[in-house]
């Protein structure tokens, strides 16, 4: 098991995720986080599993996926350095809506969401800042999902059936 991180290095603090947190809040975040290293092709979270943690990707790459009957695993999004994985922990007793798997060896910070929720009760400023941070994460994710739904590169409406070139 990896040792707990008691201080967040300046390099980590340069990540957008930590912007706006003061020293007191950073100390609490550090207390409830630890660094993990995963090899490639490891399932980090599983759809349906109780969600008590969230992750901040430090390097490497993780894909968020879901299983569709008849289509297998479908990748919904890939996450890189600075991206946050998982927000289900915000609502108590929630479970992960999607699975996530590493595509490359990946380092991340794991935050104990349940413990942080308890801290938020005692430290409203931490709660406020965390909620704002996750509101941003969620609104970004929503915006990107909307753009994906818009089918930005869709070919123009077809004027009839076309025999695929590959079959020539």
């Amino acid at each position, binding site marked *: 098991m990896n040792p707990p991180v008691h201080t967040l290095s300046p390099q980590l603090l340069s990540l957008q995720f930590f912007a706006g947190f003061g020293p007191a809040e950073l100390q609490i975040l550090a207390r409830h986080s630890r660094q993990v290293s995963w090899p490639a092709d490891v399932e980090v979270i599983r759809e349906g599993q109780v969600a008590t943690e969230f992750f901040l990707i430090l390097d490497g790459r993780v894909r968020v996926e879901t299983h569709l009957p008849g289509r297998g695993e479908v990748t919904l999004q890939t996450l890189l350095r600075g991206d946050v994985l998982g927000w289900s922990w915000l609502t108590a007793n929630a479970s992960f809506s999607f699975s996530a798997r590493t595509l490359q060896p990946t380092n991340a910070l794991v935050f104990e969401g349940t413990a942080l929720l308890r801290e938020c009760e005692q430290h409203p400023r931490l709660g406020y800042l965390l909620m704002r941070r996750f509101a941003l994460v969620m609104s970004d994710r929503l915006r990107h999902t909307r753009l994906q739904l818009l089918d*930005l590169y869709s070919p123009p409406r077809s004027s009839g059936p076309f025999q695929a070139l590959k079959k020539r």
Partner: protein
Amino acid sequence: MSAIHPPFVADAGSALVPLPYRVQRFVCDTDDTFTLTLAPQSGGEALPFAPGQFNMLYAFPSGDVPISVSGPAARREVLIHTIRAVGPVTRALAQLRRGDTVLVRGPFGKPWPVAQAEGHDVVLIAGGIGLAPLRPVLYHILAKRKRFGRLCLLYGARTPGDVLYRRELEKWRGRLDVQVEVTVDRGDSDWHGEVGVVTQLLERAQLDPARTVAMVCGPEVMMHFSRLALTKRGVPESQIFVSMERNMKCGVGSCGHCQLGPFFICKDGPVFDYPRIAPVFSTKEL
């Protein structure tokens, strides 16, 4: 940097007279997209062009369509065009075989501002078939690499099967002097690249926004969101260029077919700096 305006490049004398070209090579890029390598039937050099310009390609009996040149401008003996088969003319072009004849008229239009981008960071943002008109820019910059700052190619496609020029993308990605990011809207279990929209890639592009020239090509909705993302990243609007598309007939600004507001896309464009086209951008055909 002051606003960059693409130079006017005079159309070749053959603008109204189609010239016969022979299909030297036909490559299937994806299920619906193919690349034609065309050589002048008379021998000699092909029509010279600047990156971003287009030709009118005739397919009998269906008619003619504007198609950008997708090959290197420095390769003078052939014209290369990448075409997505979407309707009668492009599907007729998809039926061509090696040795067949195609009539070509051009080149037309204002090119990408490659010379003016020298000394700047350059970001190329392409969506779907939009990579084809930008590929000559990439060839040009890679051939004269030292004259430019950082170079980023951000490319979005619908699915892994829709990604164009895969081998070239891999080759470019292997270079140390260009950042190549490719993303798809929907990945499958064999896709190990990015999944997400092309605007997300911009957040990761390594460039100095204030000294960046952005060239964006793809469907209008994709260019609209790319422009918003570039502005959010701090790239000045005068340094953002887009390539517009409208149905065309003459290609030289005389029939009015391609009119968009005060512009004839064939003659005033297809490449525009964003402030110029902004008043009519994302509006319906007028």
